[in-house]
């Protein structure tokens, strides 16, 4: 890793990170405040009134516990979509844009190996993602402890976040690979954002109804089984492990592609 490049990358992404953190904070605060253990929240009323619509975006809690509530209302949509957006923007900015514009020239006209450049840029993205998930985890715990002390199963909540992190890592690796393959920002973003977006849409279709449920076998989002994680289902943990392994494989592929490719810069 090249520390100078890493610092530069962090400097270049903290503003974006701050915006995402602010959006996540807002959702966490609002959603946690809507929880009402005694009466069932207004959101649960929504879920009863429009079960299909709420199910599409994953908002159908399995139980009345606080952790299920957070899982349903935050980890079915908010914590999937926003970190995913961060991955798409970040991956594009770190590799493809430098190649497309030509500023990659200066990173490679120096005694720094291409593998180091790609690895450092990958680390910048993963650092951002990690910070975002850690932030969400702490935010969730603090919010719950203030409003509903002792009611959140913190251990399971952390596991849920580890799962979410591995899912996002996998998404990030798709975006990063795409950023390394395509020299044109248009294609790098198109494919890098297109695959995760398509996966997410398929998951929404699978959530929509019984007859469409088989669609879940066609999207990697199924590997992040948030209900299963909370229920302690071992398959859910295999899913997390698979996402993590997949991310490692795709990041490695991305670096290899970057090292071997012809650069017209």
């Amino acid at each position, binding site marked *: 890793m090249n520390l100078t490049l890493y610092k*530069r990358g962090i400097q270049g992404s903290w503003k974006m990170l701050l915006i995402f953190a602010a959006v996540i904070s807002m959702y966490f605060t609002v959603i946690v405040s809507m929880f009402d253990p005694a009466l069932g929240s207004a959101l649960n009323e929504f879920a009863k009134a429009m079960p299909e619509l709420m199910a599409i975006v994953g908002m159908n809690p399995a139980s009345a516990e606080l952790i299920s509530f957070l899982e349903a209302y935050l980890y079915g949509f908010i914590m999937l979509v926003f970190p995913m957006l961060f991955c798409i923007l970040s991956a594009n900015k770190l590799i493809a844009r430098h190649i497309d514009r030509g500023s990659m020239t*200066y*990173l*490679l*006209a*120096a*005694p720094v190996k*291409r593998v180091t450049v790609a690895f450092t840029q990958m680390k910048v993205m993963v650092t951002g993602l990690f910070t975002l998930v850690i932030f969400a985890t702490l935010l969730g715990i603090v919010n719950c402890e203030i409003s509903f002390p002792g009611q959140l199963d913190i251990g399971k909540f952390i596991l849920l976040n580890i799962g979410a992190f591995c899912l996002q890592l996998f998404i990030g690796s798709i975006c990063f690979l795409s950023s390394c393959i395509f020299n044109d920002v248009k294609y790098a973003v198109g494919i890098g954002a297109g695959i995760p977006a398509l996966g997410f849409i398929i998951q929404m279709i699978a959530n929509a109804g019984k007859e469409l449920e088989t669609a879940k076998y066609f999207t990697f989002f199924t590997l992040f089984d948030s209900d299963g994680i909370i229920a302690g289902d071992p398959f859910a943990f295999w899913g997390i492990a698979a996402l993590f392994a997949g991310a490692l494989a795709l990041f490695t592929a991305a670096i290899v592609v970057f090292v071997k490719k*012809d650069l017209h*810069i």
Partner: protein
Amino acid sequence: MSVCAIHNLTRNYGKERGVFNLSFSINRGEVFGFLGPNGAGKTTTIRHLMGFLKPEEGYCTIGGKDCWKDRAVIQKSLGYIPGEMVFFDDMTGTDFLTFMAKYRKVKSDRRTKELLDRFELDPRSKLKKMSKGMKQKVGIVAAFMHDPEVLILDEPTSGLDPLMQSRFVELILEEKAKGKTILMSSHMFEEVERTCTRVAIIKKGRLVAMDAVETLKAAQAKKFVITLESEEATAAFAQEGLRIIDISQNRVTVIVQNNIKELIAVMNRFPVTNIATPNQSLEEIFMQYYGGGIVG
């Protein structure tokens, strides 16, 4: 001893674009002019030397190391001015130069300061807001800051005013005296004439000429446009056995090569009203030297 060598380098982009079976080598302490019209394959060749592109066939070496496989090692003592200056967003010139120094692990900033003084550059403004000339100066400083042994310069003076161009020529001559090896692509005759020991010219990806600058200068054909009083006189002038390449109304274009006295003698006998020496591009001069063989 050759420091930089290209062996049968080929990269075919189709439609006669790319480089084809290109070979040449540059010796230590030599400033090598690399010339050719736009789209001839100069930048493609340079990209191979920089390790950005993998040769389809052939190979290039710098300091005996392979430009593709050992690119990171080669870069330690290589300085590069790209043909197009594109920096990172939202950096000032100072930020960029500091970043490059740290990124390259350059310890001392003595050389950077000296270069900034030499080119009268204040790098504190945003790169985005800099003029083309200022950006070019930032690029020059970045290429020389680590005192490299080998320099690859792709049109290094584009955008510089004449004063700065001449400062750049001085810098190149100093580096040459220190024994640095330099490959320079350029369109400026004066720059090449003053700095280069040898030049190569490529066209459509193929090497068409390579020679010492002294040889070329000695053999240089000079062009004169002579205006006469009348068209009759012009027609008669054209019959005098000089090498005429163009006649239009009462103007003739004469090529002179080691026979300036003959031209003067002829001009004395005719009603000449004006003599002009049009600016000749480097390529034009080489085309004349090598005759019709490379024109087309």
